[in-house]
Each structure stands twice: as structure tokens, then as C-alpha cells.
């Protein structure tokens, strides 16, 4: 779809994007500095801090810990979020809008509040999962699932239920009608939602701050802890890897799913 954008709008949009992307640009350059300290502009360019990141036991284990946590979160958030979105789109129950708002509330609530609440809850109930990967996992699932509900909900809003009804009256059981007809038609939304869940979990900070254990930290926490004590460009180098991973998954999503079309369909 071709849309004409007026010149002032275009300038405003470019300025807006530049403003938002500038910090990323700063981090990338700072991570490539040749100097001893995290400065901008960088003192010459080198890959020494990239090498330092790759040799750092602490950063690498944090990176892979985050990666693993994000994958685990993605799997559960995708299943839960898809099920919730299906329920919300099909039910005629009174209070379904309140329920939807409740399911989506982790996105609106400050992460600090969620992190603190879960931490206090785990301690108070003496469940033994505070400051373990399991407690952290629960926190990340809580925080990521709404993104799946949102994207799958958008896909379901565009999905014509009569397709599933047609499958049923042609002889398919409820489960087979779902798997053979509904699932392929909302699959793009589910894929997009699961990749969002991965990205959100990978970059999560506030919830992790309360729930992660000192010996197994996700990457954002490791970077934060490192910067608290020394102004070391290896944190920026770690940032470069995180940015690369997230960018790659967004590009991957875009290849798999036409996000723009998904969002446009939701407006119909």
C-alpha cells in the first residue's frame, strides 16, 4: 500500500526515530572503543572489548543464561497466551473485558512492582523459589504472556470462525478442526507473539532485578552490576551482542510474518 507522507511529517518521523535510536548508536560505538573507559565519542575503534566480552566467563554465562531463560519463557508464554487469546475471543461470558484487561495488566504495571510483589510473595509463602531460575521464569512468563495474547488476539480478530464451523460440519472433531484449519490461519500471529515474548524476556530488567540469584544473572542484570563498580566498555560490548540478537529475531519475525498486515487487520 502506497501512502504519501507530507514533508514536515517525514522530517518529524526521521527526527523521532533518530532520537530513539541514538542511544543504541552510542552503545554500539562505545563498545567498539579502543580506550580504557566507557566514553563517547570513543577513543579510536577496536574490537578489544568485544574480545573481552567473548573471554569473560561472567558475561558469556549471563548471555547464555538469558538466552535459555528467554527460550523457556517463550515456550510457556506462547502456549498460555494462545490459549488465553482463544478463550477471550470465543467466550460470551460476562466480564470478559475485565478479564482481558487483567491478563494484559503486566504490560501496564511497572516492572518494579511486579518484581517486588513476586519476590515478596515467594518469600512470604516460603515456596523456596525466590532467587532461583524457577521464580525468575515465573516472573518472565507473567511479563511476556500479554504480548502473545495481544498478537494472537489480533490474528483471531481477523479470523473468520465460520472456517472452523465449516470444518466441523465436514466431519472434523473440535481438536482436528482447530489443528487443521484454525491453527494454520492464526499461525503467523502465534509466531510473532512468541518472538515478542522471547525479546521481552531477553531484555527484561526490573523483574529480574528482584528475582535473579547472584550466581545466575540474566545479561541485563550482569551489565548493570558490572557498570555499578567500574565504567568498563565490555558492558557496551555485551550490549552490542544483545542488540544483534534482538535485531536478528525481529528481522526473522518480519520474514516469517507480515507484522504490518497483522496490525492493519486488527484495525478492520
Amino acid at each position, binding site marked *: 500500500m502506497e501512502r504519501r507522507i507530507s514533508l514536515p511529517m517525514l522530517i518529524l518521523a526521521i527526527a523521532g526515530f533518530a532520537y530513539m535510536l541514538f542511544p543504541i548508536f552510542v552503545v554500539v560505538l562505545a563498545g567498539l572503543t579502543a580506550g580504557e573507559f566507557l566514553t563517547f565519542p570513543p577513543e579510536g575503534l577496536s574490537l578489544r572489548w568485544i574480545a573481552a566480552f567473548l573471554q569473560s566467563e561472567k558475561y558469556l554465562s549471563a548471555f547464555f543464561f538469558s538466552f535459555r531463560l528467554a527460550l523457556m519463557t517463550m515456550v510457556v508464554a506462547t502456549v498460555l497466551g494462545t490459549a488465553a487469546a482463544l478463550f477471550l475471543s470465543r467466550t460470551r461470558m460476562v466480564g470478559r473485558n475485565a478479564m482481558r484487561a487483567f491478563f494484559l495488566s503486566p504490560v501496564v504495571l511497572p516492572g518494579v512492582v511486579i518484581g517486588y510483589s513476586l519476590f515478596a510473595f515467594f518469600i512470604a509463602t516460603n515456596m523456596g523459589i525466590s532467587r532461583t531460575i524457577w521464580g525468575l521464569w515465573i516472573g518472565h512468563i507473567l511479563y511476556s504472556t500479554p504480548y502473545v495474547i495481544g498478537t494472537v488476539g489480533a490474528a483471531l480478530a481477523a479470523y473468520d470462525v465460520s472456517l472452523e464451523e465449516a470444518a466441523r460440519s*465436514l466431519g472434523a472433531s473440535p481438536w482436528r478442526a482447530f489443528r487443521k*484449519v484454525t491453527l*494454520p490461519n492464526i499461525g503467523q500471529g502465534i509466531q510473532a507473539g512468541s518472538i515478542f515474548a522471547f525479546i521481552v524476556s531477553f531484555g527484561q530488567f526490573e523483574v529480574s532485578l528482584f528475582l535473579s540469584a547472584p550466581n545466575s544473572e540474566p545479561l541485563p542484570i550482569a551489565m548493570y552490576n558490572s557498570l555499578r563498580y567500574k565504567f568498563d566498555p565490555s558492558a557496551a560490548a555485551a550490549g552490542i551482542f544483545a542488540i544483534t540478537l534482538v535485531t536478528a529475531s525481529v528481522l526473522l519475525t518480519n520474514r516469517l510474518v507480515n507484522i504490518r498486515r497483522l496490525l492493519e487487520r486488527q484495525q478492520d
Partner: protein
Amino acid sequence: MSFVEFFGVTKAFGRTVAVEELNLDVRQGEFFSLLGPSGCGKSTTLRMLAGFIAPSTGAIHVHGRDITHLPPEGRDIGIVFQNYAIFPHMNVFDNIAFGLVERGEDRAIIKRKVDAALEQVGLSGYGERYERELSGGQKQRVALARLLVIEPEILLLDEPLSALDKKMREEMKFWIKNIQKSVGITTIYVTHDQSEALTMSDRIAVMNQGQVLQVGTPVEIYEHPNSRFIAEFIGESNLLSGRMGRDHVAIGDTAVPVSGAEGPTDAEVALLVRPEQIRLEPVFADEAPMLKGRVADEVYQGSLRRYLVETMGQRLTVEVPNRPDLAQLPPGADVSLYWRPESGVVLR
């Protein structure tokens, strides 16, 4: 004889009653239409028969078997939706094969049956196409072929022509009717379009506000409607209000003879006269016309002229075929109106 039967079926959504105490009786092999304005409960009735919604009370029988609580996949009923519901992620061949695959048919048999179905609906060679590559009429043919291959007992059609343009609609009307006749399948057709119902149906049930008002052949429904609602909903109608006499209806001080009227005299009634049943003649000075009127307006419609005529203090629409031997009357002309007593239908 009875094939599909509804026994006192009621469906309520919360406080709204969509269908109320519905009793219906559809015969085997019949083309049966549910006709009514939107919101009259016809689609709800169809969806209850298909098994997508459960009746609040009452029972539905097919072939004498109670199917009220069977899931859709256990009913052997095929449905064509308003938007055809072609599976967009499958090509035409796989769409048509869907029901056969679900029944665990052999691959060779599926291939043979799907090819035969494609030929039957005139879409041979379209097997590889996808929904987005089909026109509205082709989608409808695919939707029908997808059902016919599984040879269901009953075919349900939910406003299948409403998404097509006018020319296509006319074509598909006869096409669907022909397919139905050649297969001999019991068909229930939901529509709000009276001309579709009149041309295609063996029998019609006219519905309004969740109830069936009249069941009959197209001729019975059009020529002998049993209520003012049906008289006005189906076709053009003139309803003259008057008072029932022994063998006439008194409209103002004019006694209009009617035939075969039953019921108590001296009651307020409406006399239905269809516009094409009325003959208009110019009035000459020495003549005593049956009913005297004056042309108020004239609309030229190509094949006919439509006159608005004032008579007995009321207004009538009259259709006159556009033929040189029939009178053409300018507005303001005095006219006399004639119709046969049996053309008038007394509605109480």
C-alpha cells in the same frame, strides 16, 4: 414424509429470544426456504440445525432421529456460509477433499471423487488454485462441491447469494436450483430476498420476530398471504383498509366484492390487491366506472408504467405493462379501476 422436524424449538440469548416455539416440518428432497427480514431468527434456526448452537428448549429430529444434542461433525449436514468459508491455506482440491480426508477415505477414491465434483460444478482444472484466486461465483461452486462430495443428508445454504453482484446472483440462482434437483438433496435455504425464495423454493416458511408466520408454496405465499406482514414483505402490495361485509369489503362508501372471504362480518380488515392485478381504463363522460380514481403520479420503468392512483380516499399502486394498446394516462386523469374479486385477499 417428514424429514427434518423442529418440535417447539426456542433459542434465547440472554434475554433476547431469537427463535420462539418453532415447529417446522421439511420433507425429503424438498427445497425449503426460510424467508424473513434480518433478525427474524432464520439464521439462528439454520445454525441450530447445523449444530453450531444448541436450542434452549425443544428438539430437532432428522429421519425420526433426535439430533438435538449431536455435535456438528456427527450430523451429516452440509452448510454453505454467506462468505463461503473456503479454507484460505488450502488449494481448491484440498478444500473439496477435506471432508473425505476426515472420513479416512482412500487416496485414490478421494482423487476420483474430488475430480468428479470439480467437473460437476464446472471447475475442472481449478484444483491448484487458492481462495484468493477465485471469483465470488467460483468460491460458491467450491463451497458447494466441498459438501456434495461427502453426500450429506441435508444441505443448508445461509444467504449464499448476498455476496454476489446482481448478474451473478441471477445465474447462481438457477445453477443452485439445478444442482439441487439433479442431486435430489433436501435443502434448506435462508434468505431475506423474497425473489430468491419465490423462484427457487418448493415451499417457503416466512419468519418474523422469531416465529414462523406461514408455510406454503411460493404461489400460496404470494397469492394468499395470511397476514399483513407477509403481504407487505413479499412483493409489492396495496392494502386498502375497510370493513368486512357479507360478500364484499366496504371501503368508504364503496362496496368492493371479494370471493371466498371467511370470518365474522363488520370487522376492520385490510384488502390486499397486488399492483399487477389491477386494470386501469380512462373514464369517459357517459360511463359509470366500477371504482373511480385519479392518477396522482406516474413512473416510467421501461417494461411497465407504475401509477399512483387515488381512489376511495386511499392510494393504490398500479402496474401497467408498457404496450401501445394499453392506456397511458397523464397525472390528473380520471380513471376507472377494475380487478376480479378473487384478486383481492382479505387480511384481518
